[in-house]
């Protein structure tokens, strides 16, 4: 079985969370990835160079570990990852999940995993995307009564964690929109438009969007993919690309760049240039259907709710 997850080709994931696996618990830093559905961590079975640079799960040190015996391959853009499936107690914050299926890596490509600041990946997409036949982490939480509903959200705090934490994550109304395919968190974008288009060397949201905007393009909202907004090729044709497919803009021009407004279910969600321009913008153009990936820059502006129970997503001003 395979799962195509080329996220590592983007190499732009910044936010990781701690989990533990086993009894006594062994700690790992994982990427909470809305673009995949499996949980895996490096293991002591792995002799690859990449595993030597990360925390590895030792099944013989856990009294609650059970072997599944099945091996799966996850194909990434930069190479394939082989995992052995097993079951053990997984703890996420205060949530304890018993007999959770997860992957113990056996072979990891050194490039780029050796350089990752995280150990493994915790997938938060739909179960249909997972290899193996056992429940995903979120499904297990539900089945074991840890959650009352399968819903989670991402909030980027402006404050230092633990200080001045705002209990109110959003303001205004929540815009709800249905998930258009229950694999990834894919929703439809009605339109995109900009209020100003004076950008120099960066014409991503210029007048082309008016004609392309009603073709029913889809978007995918993901955390694991990194902090960028991915635009279809037809919308990025005028951008200035560096040899590494990075689209370059003069930082002095940010003030004259457009606000991109995503219209979802009739509600405009504007994204100002200060949100989508970073010091090192990486914006390759996909050649397939017009898909946008709304990454962390969007999530920083909009508190985003992933409601698997009702197959919908919600957005509100963060």
């Amino acid at each position, binding site marked *: 079985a395979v799962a195509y997850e080329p996220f590592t*080709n983007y190499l732009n994931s910044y*936010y990781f969370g701690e989990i533990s696996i086993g009894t006594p618990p062994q700690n790992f830093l994982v990427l909470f990835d809305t673009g995949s559905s499996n949980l895996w961590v490096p293991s002591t079975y792995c002799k690859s160079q990449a595993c030597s640079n990360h925390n590895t799960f030792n099944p013989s040190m856990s009294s609650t570990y059970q072997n599944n015996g099945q091996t799966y391959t996850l194909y990434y853009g930069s190479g394939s990852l082989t995992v052995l499936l097993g079951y053990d107690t997984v703890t996420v914050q205060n949530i304890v999940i018993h007999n959770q299926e997860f992957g113990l890596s056996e072979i990891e490509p050194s490039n*780029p995993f050796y350089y990752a600041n995280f150990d493994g990946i915790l997938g938060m997409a739909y179960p249909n995307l997972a290899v193996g036949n056992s429940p995903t982490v979120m499904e297990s939480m539900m089945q074991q009564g840890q959650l009352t509903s399968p819903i989670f959200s991402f909030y980027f705090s402006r404050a230092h964690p633990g200080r001045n934490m705002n209990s109110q994550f959003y303001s205004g109304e929540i815009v709800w929109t249905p998930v258009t395919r229950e694999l990834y968190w894919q929703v439809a974008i009605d339109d995109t438009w900009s209020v100003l288009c004076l950008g120099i060397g960066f014409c991503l949201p210029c007048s082309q969007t008016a004609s392309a905007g009603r073709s029913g393009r889809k978007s995918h909202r993901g955390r694991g993919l990194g902090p960028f907004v991915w635009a279809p090729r037809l919308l990025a044709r005028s951008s200035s690309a560096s040899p590494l497919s990075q689209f370059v803009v003069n930082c002095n021009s940010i003030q004259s760049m457009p606000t991109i407004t995503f219209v979802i279910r009739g509600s405009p969600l504007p994204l100002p240039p200060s949100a989508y321009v970073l010091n090192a913008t990486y914006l390759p153009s996909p050649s397939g259907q017009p898909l946008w990936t709304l990454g962390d820059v969007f999530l920083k502006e909009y508190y985003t709710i992933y409601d698997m129970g009702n197959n919908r997503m919600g957005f509100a001003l963060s």
Partner: protein
Amino acid sequence: LYRIILKKGKSIRQVMEEQGVLQTFLKNHPKVDPGAKYLFNND
């Protein structure tokens, strides 16, 4: 409500760039269409 605090770390790109291996890596690995995973012919 369970709150899971995420830590901001360095991206793989940052680390590879710091260690001077990013350019070589990107040149030697074929580009993958980021939208390929959403083309559902392989479902």
